[in-house]
Structures are given as structure tokens and as C-alpha cells.
């Protein structure tokens, strides 16, 4: 047991020493791995930020239906129950004529002439209304269809019409579309970069094996077992992954912190930098762990394959 621990420590130490000696060769591998990990991190955060933007706008979207003054309470109740039963409806809220008037008065309490005008009319000119929140923007259309059914149009005030947050819907559609494109492009870029980094690490380890073939040959003849020979190479490329993960986190940190303060946490086009920065910071440890895991996996896997392929550890027949 003691020997095994000594051996594991030696493998790790040799890997680190080799890494330091090999730094010029490793630079390319670290650079491309950093690009890969930065792309992954950036895509993740941008994706989360866009999803957040869409959710925020979604929550603001609603439909207001103004009711005919002749509609009875029972009719209102049935209408609302029917609306609630629609799968595309998240929430339904009723505002009576009196509530509408009270709200109008409190909103315009400073405007004496408006309040006076209301008392001149005598009766309440404001219609009762129902506010409908859809589950998401895609579901505005089925609600619209339902409202347009003849038995339902009869309940509505023909003069007031229905108000839709139509402009916001197109904005949301645009963002959703952009998010999809960015997500797909991100996945493609990540796959391409991951393949490139795996290949470069593979090649780096191959060259290292070639440079150290005498040493490896001597180790074999002295009875080193396969892991004692392979291990340092895997440790070395694991270090590429670790260092690249740290650099990529640092790049994103500087990028978001820098642009967030430069833009006063405002948004850059559709990208809400403030939120992105916040998202990055709240999930910092998870993101760092993810970067380390991905970096180590790419590094260790490609060097493992390289050692399997190029370290001829078997006897020729």
C-alpha cells in the first residue's frame, strides 16, 4: 500500500515536472483549450441571459378585454371560468367598473379637472375589464380565437376593443429566434473547438512521447509498469485542462466585469450585460467546476488515447 502511494505521488510529480519542461510545446494546447472553454462558458451565460430576458418580457404580456355594461355577474363568472379552463391561460383577473373608477381616480388624483369632469358625467363611464395572462407568447393566438367566438364578442364592449401587447410579442419572437441561433452556433463552435483541442493535445503528447522515447525505453527495460510510464503524460495533459479552465474563467470575469462597469450594467443590444455578469457571479463555483471537469476530460482522454496509440508497451512477436 505504501509503495502504491509513493508511486502515485511520483507519477504526479513527474507529470508536473514534465509539464514545466514542456511549456513551449504545451502553449498551443493550452491556447486552443482556453478558446474552447471560454466559448462554452460564454454560450452558457448568453443562453441563460436571453432566457431570462424572454421570461421577463413574457411576464409583462397580457390581454385586456373590456366588458359590455349590460353583462351580468353570472355571465362574467361563466366567461372567466371558461377562460381559466383554457390551457393557454395562466391567470385571469377581473376588474369591476367601481374598481376601475377608483383606480382611475387614484392615478389621476393630482388632476382636479379630470375628477371634476367625472362627477359632471354622473354615471361611471369606465367599463369592467378582464386581464388575461397567457402561459407564454405563443399562446396569445388561441386566446384571441376564443375571444373572437360570437357568444364571447357579445359580452365585450364594442367601442373599447381588446388590447394586446402585440409589439412585445414580435420583440419576444426576435429574441427567441436569436437565442436559438446563438444556441446552435454555440453548440457547433464548442464541438469544433473541442475536437481541435483534443487533436492538438493528442499531437502534443505524441511529440512528447517521441522526445522522450529513450527515457521511456529505459523505464520499460527496468521494469516500470505501464501506468508508471503512461501516468505522467495523463497528468501533464490534465494540467493543460486545469490551466485552460482557470484562464477561461478569468477571461470571462474580466470581460463581464469590465463591460458591466463600462455600460453601467445596461444592456448591449439584446444582451443584458448586467444580468449576464450577475448570473456568472452567482454560479461562479458551479461554472468553474464545469470548466475544470470539461478541461480535464478533454486533456486526459486525448492523452490517454495518445499513450495507448504511441507507447508501444507490448513485446514484438
Amino acid at each position, binding site marked *: 500500500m505504501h509503495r502504491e502511494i509513493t508511486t502515485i505521488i511520483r507519477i504526479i510529480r513527474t507529470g508536473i515536472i514534465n509539464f514545466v519542461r514542456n511549456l513551449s510545446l504545451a502553449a498551443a494546447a493550452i491556447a486552443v483549450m482556453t478558446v474552447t472553454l471560454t466559448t462554452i462558458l460564454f454560450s452558457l451565460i448568453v443562453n441563460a441571459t436571453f432566457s431570462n430576458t424572454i421570461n421577463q418580457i413574457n411576464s409583462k404580456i397580457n390581454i385586456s378585454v373590456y366588458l359590455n355594461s349590460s353583462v351580468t355577474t353570472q355571465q362574467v363568472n361563466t366567461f372567466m371560468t371558461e377562460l381559466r379552463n383554457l390551457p393557454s391561460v395562466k391567470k385571469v383577473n377581473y376588474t369591476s367598473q367601481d374598481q376601475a373608477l377608483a383606480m382611475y381616480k387614484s392615478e389621476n388624483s393630482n388632476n382636479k379637472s379630470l375628477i371634476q369632469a367625472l362627477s359632471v358625467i354622473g354615471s361611471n363611464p369606465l367599463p369592467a375589464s378582464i386581464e388575461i395572462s397567457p402561459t407564454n407568447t405563443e399562446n396569445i393566438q388561441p386566446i384571441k380565437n376564443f375571444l373572437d367566438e360570437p357568444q364571447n364578442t357579445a359580452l365585450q364592449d364594442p367601442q373599447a376593443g381588446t388590447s394586446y401587447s402585440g409589439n412585445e410579442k414580435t420583440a419576444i419572437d426576435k429574441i427567441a429566434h436569436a437565442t436559438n441561433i446563438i444556441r446552435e452556433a454555440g453548440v457547433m463552435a464548442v464541438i469544433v473547438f473541442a475536437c481541435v483541442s483534443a487533436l492538438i493535445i493528442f499531437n502534443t503528447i505524441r511529440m512528447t512521447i517521441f522526445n522522450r522515447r529513450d527515457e521511456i*525505453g529505459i523505464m520499460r527495460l527496468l521494469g516500470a509498469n505501464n501506468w508508471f510510464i503512461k501516468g505522467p503524460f495523463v497528468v501533464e495533459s490534465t494540467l493543460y485542462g486545469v490551466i485552460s479552465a482557470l484562464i477561461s474563467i478569468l477571461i470571462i470575469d474580466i470581460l463581464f466585469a469590465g463591460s458591466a462597469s463600462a455600460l453601467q450594467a445596461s444592456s448591449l443590444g439584446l444582451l443584458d450585460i448586467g444580468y449576464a455578469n450577475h448570473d456568472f457571479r452567482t454560479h461562479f463555483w458551479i461554472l468553474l467546476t464545469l470548466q475544470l471537469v470539461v478541461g480535464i476530460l478533454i486533456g486526459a482522454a486525448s492523452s490517454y488515447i495518445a499513450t495507448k496509440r504511441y507507447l508501444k508497451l507490448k513485446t514484438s512477436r
Partner: protein
Amino acid sequence: MSMMIVLDRVTKIYNRNTGPVLNRVTLHIKPKEFVIMVGQSGAGKTTLMRLLTREERPSSGKIIVGGIDFDKLSDKDIPNLRRKIGVVFQDFKLLNNRTVFENIAFALEIVGVSKREIQKTVPKVLEIVNLKGKEKRMPPELSGGETQRVAIARAIVRQPKILIADEPTGNLDPKHAWDVIKVLEKINRFGTTVLLTTHNASIVNKLKRRVVTLEHGKIISDRANAEYKI
């Protein structure tokens, strides 16, 4: 008494057109024996050594070394075999970017010996091969004889049952060659089986040990207390 090394009708063919390099070689070596193998270049001496360390596999025939039957030896177990055998190579195979001490310690590091034990063992071995005080030298700074003794020190530091030395005196002048041979004799006296190949007649004649002569891949003579004769 069980044998330390057994070769039974061992044949090695690299190329069918040039014929076998070793042709049905049968050789038994007892524990603690000192055996000298002689023969001209190309007689098959080095191939025989490479078969014993499993760098090569025989085309046919049986090999048993230190109780390990090569027919039952998987690739995974080769390191264990090599740990039982100390080998001194014709071309030394030392790491030129490491000191004498580190080169010898390397053989121990590979098998997981602790640093403390290494610090204790290596100086003892350096004393056996008369290299005390040269611990911090690099191999290129040493003379041929000294380099060869570093290689021997590395081969014996794990106290193997068998020491195989392939032409260890090949590149040395007579005085240094004899220094190396004296070290081998000392190791043999400690109980290690030694298999030495050489084509240095004066060394063979002076040693007066068992001499096995190889010619064209065949053993043509095997005599005790023999003199050099090809």
C-alpha cells in the same frame, strides 16, 4: 536443484530467408553460477539476452527464468519479470540528463521504493562498484569504465537474482575492463547468478568459469573452467 535459467530448444527467426538467429538452443544455468557466453558478432548472443528479458519472444521453444515460465507470462507481467533481472546493456542506457545518483535511484523509484530507503541503498551500491564520491556527476562526464559501473550499479541496486551483462567491456581498455569484471565477480560472490557475454579472450581465460560458445545461432561448446576458443 531447480535451475535459474532454462532454455529448451529455443529458436528465433526474424526473417525466413536468412535462417534462424538462434537454432534450437538448450541451456541450463544453476543459481549462483557465473556463465560466460562467447561468440562472434552475429552469433546470437544479444538476441539470447533479449529473449531472457522478454524484449523478444522466441519463435519456438521454452524459456523459464527465475521460476517464471514465459509461456504463461502475459504482457502485463513483463514488468515483474524485469524487476527480477538486472541487465547491463552494451550501450549503457543511462539517462544523460540525470546524475549518477539519480540514474541508480531511478531503478528504485520505478518500483515504488521510498525516498528514505533510496537514500540508504544507493550509496551502498556505489561503494560496491567503487564509484563513491561520483554521485553528483553526469554520465557524459565519466570515463567509459565508470559509466559501465554506473550501469552495473543500477542493475544490481534492486538485488536481482540474475544479472545479465551484454558485452559490458566492449568499449573499454583492458584495465577498465578488468575493473568491471571484478565488480561482476564480487556480485556473483554475494549470490547473484551472472550471465556475461564477451569476446574478450584474456578476460575469459583469466576468469576460468563455465564458457558457452555460440556460433551461427547454435551452442557448439559448453565447458566448465574453460578458456577462450572459437
